[in-house]
């Protein structure tokens, strides 16, 4: 296979990754790593670099659409970014000492977790009484619905902050956005309503990925020959996805996608245990 063919196939793969990522809310990164490592036998370090680029592309690409609706809680996102960016820097340092096979196994475990999280039902109702810290940090907010403005309050800020640190470490180590962990922290621990947690998590994914991307770029993980079809493909896919999202029911799609990534995850873990990376 020559470079031209490699680029075209990767472009198509990245397009599908961006499309699936934006429709299911998992981001483009999770599909890019298995595609490159299992599909093209690319070294996992190049794949991590490409996934970071893909995460930023999906985040910034769809954030410009979300911002218009005005439901991102910027204060909440900013406060939690202390945890995720610090975690991401730690993860990028840890990556130097982590064997690539262990990275592959961790990635597989994270994929299965993400698949399970996609199918979980999320909180829609807003809490009426928040914790003390939520008032002090001005984290409570409101969002517009058809029935008017709905205000919500948050609880368990410390718990959410801790989970976010882990999300940051994993995203720095594996090159993914860890959107699933971010939603877990906001949805389950802090009780952020689903419409706010999805967009706020998306806002944070870009910033977290950028914090580790500046390190990985300097380490040579981001190769231009892989990066350019990934950027173009993922952006185009995410754009198509955000248009489609309003018209189709994603429920069955989520189930199919979750089964598919679970199978891929098992493959990654199997290969990791057998030292194939």
């Amino acid at each position, binding site marked *: 296979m020559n470079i031209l063919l490699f680029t075209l196939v990767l472009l198509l793969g990245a397009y599908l990754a961006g499309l699936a990522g934006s429709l299911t809310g998992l981001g483009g990164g999770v599909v890019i790593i298995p595609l490159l490592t299992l599909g093209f036998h690319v070294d996992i370090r190049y794949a991590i670099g490409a996934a970071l680029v893909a995460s930023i592309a999906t985040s910034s690409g769809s954030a410009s659409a979300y911002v218009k609706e005005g439901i991102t809680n910027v204060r909440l996102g*900013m406060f939690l970014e202390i945890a995720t960016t610090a975690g991401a820097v730690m993860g990028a340092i840890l990556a130097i000492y982590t064997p690539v096979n262990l990275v592959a196994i961790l990635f597989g475990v994270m994929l299965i977790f993400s698949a399970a999280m996609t199918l979980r039902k999320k909180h829609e109702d807003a809490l009426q009484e928040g914790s003390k810290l939520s008032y002090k940090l001005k984290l409570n907010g409101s969002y517009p619905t058809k029935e008017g403005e709905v205000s919500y309050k948050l609880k368990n800020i410390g718990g959410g902050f801790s989970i976010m640190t882990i999300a940051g470490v994993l995203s720095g180590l594996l090159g993914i956005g860890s959107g699933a962990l971010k939603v877990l922290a906001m949805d389950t621990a802090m009780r952020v309503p689903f419409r706010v947690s999805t967009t706020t998590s998306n806002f944070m994914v870009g910033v977290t990925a950028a914090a580790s991307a500046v390190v990985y770029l300097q380490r040579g993980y981001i190769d231009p*020959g892989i990066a350019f079809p990934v950027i173009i493909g993922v952006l185009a896919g995410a754009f198509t996805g955000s248009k489609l999202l309003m018209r189709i029911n994603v429920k069955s799609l989520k189930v199919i996608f979750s089964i598919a990534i679970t199978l891929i995850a098992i493959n990654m873990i199997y290969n990791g245990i057998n030292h194939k990376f």
Partner: protein
Amino acid sequence: MEKNKKVTDYDMEQLIGQVLRYGVLTSGIIAIIGGIWYLIQSGSGIPNYTSFSGEPAGYTSLTGIIKGLAAGSAKEIIQLGVVILIATPILRIVFSLFSFILEKDRLYVVITLIVLLIIIFSMFGGLKV
């Protein structure tokens, strides 16, 4: 006062949305230009990514990228697109910082500064081992 705050928040969000859109668009266009140039030059070569070669390449540092750009090198043009893409979320933080300064929200000025410092630390903190 409360109403006034809402207006600036909304305006700021619109501005941030624009910045993200243009950032992503610019990065995509530069990546396409560099990519086509790269394919013309070396499209018939064989991709070699099965083993990791890491750092020595010129596109792993900003000075390297600028040097490559001056020489019209395709890989560095693509990498400029990547750098712009990485810069968009960081720019978003900077804009939020200004917005919190305008609102005189001291707590969040500090919080935003901490986030920015962490990112700057990882940029220049000698993490390149």
